[in-house]
């Protein structure tokens, strides 16, 4: 009927109710948090790299917020292991929307991409390209 109802397909709701990889890693290579002021969504990701320092081995996250932001984080946490930081850096909005597999209404894009932004900014800080003090927000991203 309209776009909105499509956002809440079973897969999204399943990841929202039963988030994968929720929790903490014992020895993360880096940790980064982010915030989406429009919904008040919060996410914090732990990422552990392989010995090559390039490839993601494990991911865990903690979060609170709307179904779109939390399902996106859960689904991304399943995609990330095996990816290199360069590949993570190359992710864009369309990749995330493809991953979610639903039509996200324009006002909710910020919720959808928060997880991607948090991991990308965390990786940037880890590799020395980002400002340590920054907390990710998706305010300017819609």
């Amino acid at each position: 009927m309209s776009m909105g109802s499509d956002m809440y397909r079973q897969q999204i709701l399943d990841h929202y109710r039963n988030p994968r990889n929720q929790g903490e890693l014992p020895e993360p290579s880096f940790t980064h948090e982010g915030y989406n002021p429009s919904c008040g969504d919060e996410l914090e990701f732990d990422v552990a790299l392989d010995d090559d320092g390039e490839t993601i081995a494990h991911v865990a996250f903690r979060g609170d917020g709307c179904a779109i932001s939390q399902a996106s984080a859960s689904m991304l946490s399943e995609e990330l292991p095996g990816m290199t930081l360069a590949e993570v850096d190359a992710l864009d909005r369309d990749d995330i929307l493809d991953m979610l597999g639903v039509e996200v209404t324009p006002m909710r894009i910020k919720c959808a991409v928060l997880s991607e932004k948090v991991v990308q900014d965390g990786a940037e800080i880890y590799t020395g390209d980002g400002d340590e003090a920054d907390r990710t927000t998706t305010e300017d991203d819609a």
Partner: protein
Amino acid sequence: MEATEQGPIDVEAVRADFPILEREVAGGEDLVYLDNAATSHTPEPVVDAIADYYRRYNSNVHRGLHELSQEASVAYEDAHDKLAAFVGGEDREEMVFTKNTTEAENLVAFAWGLNELGPGDEVVLTQMEHHASLVTWQQVADETGAEVKYIPITDDGYLDMDAAADMITDDTALVNAVHISNTLGTVNPVGELADIAHDHGAYIFVDGAQAAPTRAVDVQEIDADFYAFSGHKMLGPTGIGCLYGKRHLLAEMEPFLYGGDMIERVSYEDATWNDPPWKFEAGTPVIAQGIALAEAVDYLQDIGMDAIRAHEEALTEYAYDQLTMTDDVDVYGPPGDDRGAVVSFNVDGIHAHDLSSILNDYGVAIRAGDHCTQPLHDTLGVPASARASFYLYNTRDEVDALVAAVDEARQIFAP
């Protein structure tokens, strides 16, 4: 028929003046517009007033001696008188047109606060202030060395008036309170707060953004020193707000913005100021908006503010009762029979933004988020809430549509 069922407003006749209410959204659903605390819709006579101004006598005010400018100037000045009277003020000298309520707050903060406040002075706000005043006075306090204090709320969303009596002291320079909370719906005893403030030589600024559109307001009965509200929440256009100020205060205050029209005499070295309200309306002002807002006042007063209030109170109580019939809904603020026309709530397990997205599928427009009261939401212990807010054109059927859509969301999110 509607009139007897819902109170003294002929809602069907009113709705005919608002073509936007006839439109469909979400691919074929009837629009159910319950976001009136954010902005109200604009009836045909007000749209016509804007069009008529631009079609017939568009012109700058106070500058031309030609006929168009005279007509525009008279209409614009008369609009000040009408808006002053709308809230119980005497005439145009007590009524400044601004951009919105937020700018009215900033006007007083800059023109009075920055000049008059200093270390040792206190500005007393409430925990339910809108960011419009909360952020503004925080910054002025930061700049001047004054201190901001917040009157706490009780568990059921009322102002703690015992605490208010303790917190407002001889150190208090200004009390700033919302007349009706845009989140809790609480109707604050602003007259009582004014008395306490005045007992201590302090001024009171009342934020009437949610009150002026929905009930008869009398600034003299409240004894408000300043009273602000926004045009777009009371059937007027965006881009205009109103600041009532007591005559002697506006006369004594420094200007806010400098430029044309706010001056009396200018030399290369200096300038003197025009009289209120023009002293505070620098540059070409909100001419079309002011004239249209006066038309909105006529529209509201033709129906009657008491009738509008009665209609809204009935709808609000009905919505409160319907929403709280299930245990998984938390409504914030006072009971349904003692509040302004807003109902903020959360449904267990459904984030307010998810709820709002699903409601939109059923044509139901509500607000979801922090409603520009983040600290209050922190106090309530929730990141966001859903808010339904009602106006003169809403019906019980629309409340039923809201409740039905909430139930659909509940089904989608059911474990």
